[in-house]
């Protein structure tokens, strides 16, 4: 099965069990990132998003900016991160998040191939909107790499079906107007957009950006098929290391499983 197929099959299987997907985000190349990815996998992550650090991360708030900066200072490159991913032995699908210049500079074909070689299932490119996504999406499709499209709260209704038609693996439902980072409460836009997306697509819908803890994850999943948690994970990685992340992921997993238990078949 292609990486794209594995990602979508995995998320759909979780949904058909009545459960919810949990996708932690880890900045590749940051201190102890590989151990952190393992800790996520061991504590109930459905899939893991690995960020490729970029010099100008315009969609990221201070926590992920700091992790990116640390990774770059430590000499991380897309090549070094792919090599570590290739050697990684976790049993959950990996999706990378990267800014478009990383893809454009490498070349669409070459970048897609390097994802396949690294065992990566998909890519999230936050500064590549629908209108500009064609050439990359075609290359990704050819290589069996899922392009996870983002949908934003500002999108008019007519735009959403066009975004979801182009989405592979899952749709990234942006939780709020703003950059990545933890918030006191889940924005009202988070569930509103997820509901609008669910009404136009069968592709799993995951809410990310501003889903800060277990309680907010449960709230988002009242509508969505799962959540992506970035800053909450990365902050714990920087402050407390992989064990701290493992405990957090396990806590969110438990909260989701308590509220949305497996439906006995």
């Amino acid at each position, binding site marked *: 099965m292609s990486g794209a197929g594995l990602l979508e099959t995995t998320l759909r299987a979780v949904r058909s069990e009545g459960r919810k997907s949990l996708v932690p985000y880890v900045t590749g190349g940051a201190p102890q990132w590989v151990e952190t990815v393992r800790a996520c996998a061991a504590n109930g992550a459905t899939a893991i998003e690995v960020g490729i650090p*970029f*010099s*100008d*991360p*315009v*969609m990221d*708030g201070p926590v992920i*900016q700091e992790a990116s*900066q640390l990774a*770059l200072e430590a000499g991380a*490159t*897309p*090549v070094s991160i792919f090599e570590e991913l290739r050697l990684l032995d976790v049993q959950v699908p990996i999706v990378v998040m990267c800014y*478009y*210049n*990383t893809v*454009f*500079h*490498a070349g669409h074909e070459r970048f897609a191939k390097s994802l396949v070689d690294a065992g990566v299932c998909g890519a999230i490119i*936050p*500064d*590549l*909107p*629908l*209108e*500009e996504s064609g050439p990359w999406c075609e290359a990704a499709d050819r290589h069996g790499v899922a392009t996870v499209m*983002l*949908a*934003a*709260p*500002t*999108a*008019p209704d007519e*735009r959403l079906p066009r*975004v979801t038609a182009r989405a592979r693996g899952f749709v990234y439902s*942006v939780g709020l*107007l*703003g*950059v990545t980072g933890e918030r006191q409460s889940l924005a009202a836009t988070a569930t509103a957009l997820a509901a609008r997306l669910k009404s136009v697509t069968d592709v799993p819908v995951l809410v990310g950006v501003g889903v800060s803890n277990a309680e907010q994850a449960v709230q988002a999943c009242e509508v969505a098929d799962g959540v992506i948690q970035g800053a909450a994970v990365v902050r714990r990685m920087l402050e407390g290391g992989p064990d701290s992340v493992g405990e957090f992921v396990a806590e969110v997993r438990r909260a989701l499983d308590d509220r949305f238990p497996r439906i006995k078949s």
Partner: protein
Amino acid sequence: MTTLVTPGTDGRFGDFGGRFVPETLVPACQELEREFAAAWEDETFRAELNQILAEYAGRPSIITECENLGRQLGIKLVLKREDLNHTGSHKINNVLGQTLLAKRMGKRRIVAETGAGQHGVASATAAALMGLECKVYMGAVDVERQALNVFRMRLLGAEVEAVHSGSRTLKDAVNEAMRDWVATVESTHYCLGSVMGPHPYPYMVRQFHRVIGDEARVQMRDRYKKDPDVIVACVGGGSNAMGIFSGFVDTDARLIGVEPAGGAAVGRGQPGVVHGMKSYLMQDEFGQVQEAHSISAGLDYPGVGPEHSYLASIGRAEYPTVTDDEVIAAFQLMARSEGIIPALECAHALAWIVLESPRLAGKTVLMNLSGRGDKDVAQMMDILGNSI
């Protein structure tokens, strides 16, 4: 004959430009594209803008022939005096256009990035005039070296935030302004300060600065009965250069955009995508954007507006570089020869003219003096000290 490009909905100048922004910003960019197109066709809007440009900014700006320098260099050197505009640079043209448009769109707040502080000062000024809230992002390094402009912005009622991420210069100020806009897009207009960013900004900002080239073309014909042989302007993002170039793209004049040696996006960059546009960009082998280094905060930018990349790619404009030392010499030369203290940015244009003058003998050279150098005096005092 080359003509000025009007980009279609894909925002392209040849292979360059486009709209590479987060999904959140796509509807805002589309709305801006529609609203600008409608306003630009609307005689009432244009008349109102022209009136403010005349009665507030002081347009048209004059042209001045530098007889002393011209004699010294063996050329006819003419300056387009954007330094005489209100707030001291060409930036006011674009800012008055954008704030008028922002009001028309019902926005209550603008955000802006600034390097040297000229665009920040112009934005703060226009916001005060139009009754808009204004926040300016400025790299911490630039806050340090342009303290006077920071205070000026605060006097005008704007909030100035020092940006401590990345290289702490213009590129990082753009990142932070974009992050603000992503969070506030419903109430806020991003008043981008150069011919860069996602479509429609490169096109819109050029249209607001066309007045420089359009005026200069008429003024040159009135005074000298011919078009200049060479047009020279400095290029960071490239707004003053696009402004003056747009009046002469369809003539035989050579178009010269002078970049700093440490920020030569066209000269040393490769095509890349950052800040919403595909354009030449200084980057490493993995596509990480490199930090520019220039004595002039306004040119300390690793990218360039996409229309410049296009003009370079078709060979219509040339983008040579000059060093900081050559710029410092040119800065003093203009002060002493003509009694005009130029902005350090514009001293780049003069530095190229000086270096190239043996090959320009007898030519008529039109240089865009896009800003005045008052803001640079403290910095130059540190550099020159007692040596003058």
